[in-house]
């Protein structure tokens, strides 16, 4: 939470701009002087502001990608699971086929085919995450479909769409929410990984992955440029994992009552 708030307000409280370069002060160590709390990078840009900006970009990518995968995955999985039969078989084979595509290869192809842009990262990450979500949702739907309250709804003439959205979907929420909190760190990792390889966010935009990449280049001269973004990345990942654990316990408790 603290990190999220910092990332939101951070760029405003610091006088420095994330693109402003100050070639007089490159690779300064963190200090209060000149308001460079995390120091500056190889181009003299303020690392605090750039880190906060990087967190924003990383979180935005991760959350948008997860939400995208949530909607596609839940709708796709619920339909496949509920309709069943041949529709299910065709839909799930498509998922299997997409799984078989090598992801990095896929992203590089996208980068080559289109301009490098921000949107592509969402598409790329969303495109892998929804596959997992669809599988999980389909499995849950298959077991929910056999539940007696669904049979009762079919008997009374409730429409298929209403059964999926009123009877199946709400009962999927527990596992879906938990799973989303687990896909967010996964998306963060993937984004960082892409940026680290130079395939992700492009300058002057930045993300935690890109900062770590830059930090690696400066490692011998200024270790803090690597350590600060890397530590924050690790802390964020841990936070989301704890959040996932907590939510899972919450939903378990409700069911056991």
């Amino acid at each position, binding site marked *: 939470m603290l990190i999220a708030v910092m990332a939101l307000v951070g760029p405003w409280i610091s006088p420095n701009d994330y693109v402003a370069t100050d070639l007089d002060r490159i690779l300064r160590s963190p200090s209060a002087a000149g308001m460079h709390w995390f120091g500056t990078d190889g181009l003299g840009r303020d690392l605090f502001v750039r880190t906060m900006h990087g967190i924003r970009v990383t979180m935005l990518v991760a959350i948008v990608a997860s939400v995208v995968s949530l909607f596609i995955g839940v709708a796709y999985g619920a339909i496949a699971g509920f309709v069943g039969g041949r529709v299910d078989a065709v839909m799930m084979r498509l998922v299997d086929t997409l799984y078989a595509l090598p992801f990095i290869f896929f992203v590089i192809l996208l980068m080559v085919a289109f301009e490098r842009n921000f949107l592509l990262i969402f598409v790329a990450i969303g495109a892998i995450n929804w596959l997992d979500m669809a599988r999980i949702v389909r499995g849950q739907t298959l077991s929910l479909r056999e*539940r007696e*309250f669904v049979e*009762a709804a079919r008997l*009374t003439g409730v429409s298929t769409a209403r059964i999926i959205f009123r009877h199946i979907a709400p*009962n999927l929420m527990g596992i879906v929410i938990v799973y989303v909190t687990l896909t967010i760190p996964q998306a963060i990792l993937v984004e960082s990984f892409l940026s680290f390889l130079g395939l992700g966010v492009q300058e002057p935009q930045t993300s935690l992955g890109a900062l770590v990449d830059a930090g690696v280049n400066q490692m011998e001269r200024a270790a803090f440029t690597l350590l600060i973004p890397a530590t924050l990345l690790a802390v964020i990942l841990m936070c989301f994992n704890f959040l996932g654990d907590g939510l899972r316990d919450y939903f378990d408790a409700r069911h056991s009552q």
Partner: protein
Amino acid sequence: MSLLDVTGLTIRYGDDTVVAGVDVFVERGESVGLVGESGSGKSQSALAILGLLPKNARVDGSIEFDGQQILGESEKSLNTIRARRIGMVFQDPMQALNPYLRVGAQLKQIILSHGLAEKDEASHRAIEMLAKVGLPDPERQSRAYPHQLSGGMRQRVMLASALIAEPDLLIADEPTTALDVTVQAQILDLLEDIRDNTALLLITHDLGVVAGYCEHMIVLERGRVVDAGPTTSLFAGPGHAHTQRLIAAAPRVDRGGAPAPVSASTILSVGDAAVDYDELHAVVNVSFSVRKGETVAVVGESGSGKSSLVRAVLGLVPMAAGRVVYSGETLDGPVETRSLDGRRDLQLVFQDPVSALNPQMRVQTIVEESLLVHEPALGAAERRASVVAMLEKVGLEKKFLRRFPHELSGGQAQRVAIARALILDPKILICDEAVAALDGTVRAQVLDLLRSVQEETGLSIVFISHDLAVVRSISHRVLVMYMGRLVEAANNESLFARPAHPYTQALIKSVPVPDPVVAPGRAPLLGEVPSLLNPPSGCVFHPRCPRADAACSDTTPVLRDLDGTRVACHHPGN
């Protein structure tokens, strides 16, 4: 001195007292029944005696076993007592047996770890014990994994492992509740036969079992003993009000009370219905009809196809052959393709009310949902009013509208499920084991509710049940199914007075009667239901039938009329 002497047993979880000052005495060789409805604390008391309660339970009082205080004993010394001197059997043998070990090996492990025999002797002892509990071909079966055995066979293995050390006391917690009635009779007989000098503490909700097999009984209500004494005198004398309530609520298979027969027009007729699941023929050529205002019971053990039959009639599972005619209209295809009116008139109530209600919806939403489909003209206020009226009819107050299913008791949840089915004003209500999961007194209330709705509205009811005593009390006509076939169909009166099919006769005899004066007969049927994947030739019942001859294994009997009863048997009659 008693073998087991429990005094003032109190069990608390936090501020919740689940057992309050219970006394239990068991003499050597005696059988004692611990009776009560769910939540009465009977299982908790048994677990306390065994020292198996979870760590957060606070236990007070005194538990003396053979003069030795065992409450608060160390786990190690309890283990010795539990293994050598107290045996235990639980309701679900699948949970109590290790799924990764062959049953013979599990017995051997018990024998070796308690030094009951030498290593080279152990296998032999295990097989001997399995033979003693009536496992057919024990040599071969000892190499089976638990999942390869039927429920009855697994319970036999459990009994073998509980009794192999020849304990002084056997504690059995609902040992036959999960079993079919003919298998239950076999297991109860076995329990009686091989007990020798072992005392028995039998925990059960079934008064019939206690009346037939226990010398003493203890009645629990909400964690307190309300009655204790010899079984015969508790059944005979005017005991505690709760005991009387329990006895009054237990239906008897040996006594009539059938509702007056109705003679009205046929509303539903099913002809030559068949249901296949791939290679498995779950229902084979079953025909029956339902008249207006009539209750037709479908009885049979698990795997008899009774649920598949009505699910096919409703269009929830595909019907392989046959036709369903409902007041002149042919119903076929899955339920989604049927006309809304046709769907409206046939409604279903399920066995487990908890899984039949969407856990994420409030009672009001659950009950009114079908009105949205069938009465789209109704406004929100009118819908609410009809839900309130319906709930009132099933005996629930207005305050239940905002509840979620997990905030309801089993009986309340089943009433909500019935309200949901009845709000469309159906002509036929199908109850699939609708009272099987309920406690005796609640079951009696729900049955009364169904009867009064029927009297009021002329509703027809198809009542699926494995419990013949309940069937006798509620149905006009009875269909008996075995392995997917209809073996006998008759009106209530004649079916229970003069059952013609040997299977029907055995079923009726297997039901324990809640009256110690009626001596329980020996289990009338041996063996268990064969696999549906590989049904016996000719009459499917012939391998278990006492009257079977060569003709029975050659030719399949067809249903024929016999004094107003339809029966499929080569040798019908008493």
